[in-house]
């Protein structure tokens, strides 16, 4: 049994949430325990968009940790979800990314499931010509894949394996729900999907999306090109339990070199300026001055508003030292052509080739390699103190500590 107590038989973790031992990114036993206690624990995980499964019978396949799952639109708009594993021999029930179906039939031996994941029939259950078949007492109702609770908010569909988990909104907490609804406020449309493989433990990315401290230090695009954001107020809103965070950069917009050009200054630095900054035009669309809002949901989901570039990032672990980051870029169904074009151009900012995000693709790997021989050494997470409360600065690691607070609680470690 891989649980926190067993793991602590061989590993040490100082008390508190401002120190992280490197073995948590390395030990396969930790990853197995995370599957049970975090991915299958009392936690809601992003699965897909409402618009991915708009019609009766639409389904989409994804993952909760290592577990393959199917998300389905049932009768009268109901959402269903279940483990993508046949009750018979364990084969994938659905092996496409998405589709529309009346029911699901396992390819291996044609065991059939309804849209809720209930086992409906077993091929040749009574045998053929009175021979073979399942024992008379075999009860279909006693067998089937594990079911999810599924709910949606702002057009984003989430699921949990744990019947004892709080409701989705209670899990997210009111301040975080408000941040989600600020952006995800009407019908979405997918404008692109990309997967980025990150050669690092999934928790390094979970920390990264909460790490407001690194943003202006690692990602040098804005500073290099002298793209100044005036009135850079901002801060971090953290859910009362520390699990989720929303960071905001507030300002009148971004000022690019055209300001300097207009004033006839900095001409000697022309070579450091952008030739075509049209993609940075500011188009406020949410009725406020928040230019950037990043919402990190426990454990590994990020909802991005970078000016007009909107995306959902979903973390899927791939072994102890790898993960897939699934990017879903979205617009609104009622976007004007101009707004849609702006979203396409601003997709340059974040993504596998993003001006202000590509470094996140390699930085976790630098850590993974750096700590290769340092299992028993520890990382320091002390910017902004020792707790995980909301702060009116981004020079803090409070949200990262919030992640570890919830991690240690759920892992009992």
């Amino acid at each position, binding site marked *: 049994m891989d649980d926190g107590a067993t793991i602590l038989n061989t590993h040490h973790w100082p008390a508190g949430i401002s120190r992280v031992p490197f073995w948590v990114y390395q030990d396969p036993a930790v990853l197995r325990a995370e599957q049970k206690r975090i991915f299958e624990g009392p936690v809601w995980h992003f699965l897909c968009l409402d618009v991915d499964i708009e019609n009766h019978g639409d389904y989409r396949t994804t993952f909760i940790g290592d577990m393959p799952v199917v998300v389905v639109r049932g009768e009268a708009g109901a959402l269903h979800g279940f483990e993508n594993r046949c009750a018979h021999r364990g084969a994938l029930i659905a092996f496409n990314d998405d589709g529309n179906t009346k029911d699901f039939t396992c390819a291996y031996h044609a065991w059939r499931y309804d849209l809720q994941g209930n086992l409906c029939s077993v091929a040749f259950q009574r045998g053929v010509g009175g021979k073979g078949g399942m024992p008379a007492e075999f009860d279909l109702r006693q067998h089937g894949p594990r079911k999810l609770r599924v709910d949606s908010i702002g057009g984003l569909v989430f699921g949990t394996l744990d019947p004892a988990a709080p409701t989705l909104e209670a899990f997210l907490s009111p301040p975080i729900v408000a941040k989600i609804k600020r952006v995800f406020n009407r019908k979405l449309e997918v404008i692109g999907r990309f997967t980025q*493989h990150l050669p690092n433990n999934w928790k390094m990315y979970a920390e990264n999306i909460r790490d407001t401290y690194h943003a202006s230090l690692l990602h040098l695009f804005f500073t*290099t090109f002298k793209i100044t954001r005036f009135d850079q107020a901002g801060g971090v809103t953290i859910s009362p339990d520390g699990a989720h965070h929303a960071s905001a950069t507030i300002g009148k917009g971004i000022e690019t070199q055209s300001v300097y050009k207009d004033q006839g200054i900095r001409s000697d630095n022309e070579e450091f300026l*952008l030739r*075509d900054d049209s993609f940075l035009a500011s188009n406020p669309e949410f009725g406020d001055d928040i230019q950037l809002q990043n919402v990190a949901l426990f454990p590994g989901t990020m909802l991005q508003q970078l000016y007009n570039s909107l995306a959902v990032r979903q973390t899927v672990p791939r072994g102890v030292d790898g993960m*897939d980051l699934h990017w879903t870029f979205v617009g609104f169904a009622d976007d004007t052509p101009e707004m849609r074009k702006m979203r396409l*151009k601003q997709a340059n900012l974040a993504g596998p080739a993003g001006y202000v995000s590509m470094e996140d693709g390699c930085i976790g790997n630098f850590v993974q390699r750096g700590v290769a021989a340092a299992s028993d050494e520890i990382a320091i997470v002390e910017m902004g103190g020792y707790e995980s409360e909301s702060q009116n600065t981004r020079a803090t690691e409070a949200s990262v500590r919030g992640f570890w607070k919830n991690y240690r609680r759920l892992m009992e470690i």
Partner: protein
Amino acid sequence: MPGMDTLYQVSALNTAYAATIDGDRLEDWPGFFHADCLYKITTAENVRRGRLAGIIYADSRGMLEDRVAAIRRANIFETHAYRHVIGMASILNEDADGIRAEAPFLVVRTMRDGQMTLFAAGRYQDLLRPDETGALRFAERVVICDSPRFDTLVAIPL
């Protein structure tokens, strides 16, 4: 049926394009494009579903020059190099609007420590027009990768 001359010109352009990127002469890369252009990196799945976003999306040569400047001055990543192998182009159409062509590619990425990976496979979907000197340049180059997945990051253009 387009002539051999067109096929030769397109193939020569593709060869020069690959040599420029693989030879780390990125400053010359925007010169393969018209001032008004489209350069986009996307995936076959996005194209099939009519999704227009790319991980790189430039609608001017200026944006390509900015991409190069960012790679050189701003973005941080481990040293690596590409080796493009671009197959024989197909000339799909040639009319007053330009030449529509398509060519398959493979890109091997070699990292600092010698690790070599088949980084990308796919096809270029191109619209080519002559510039004022008569040389063919890209009005559009859409890089359609077969895989939806990119390893680590995409800094150097494909």
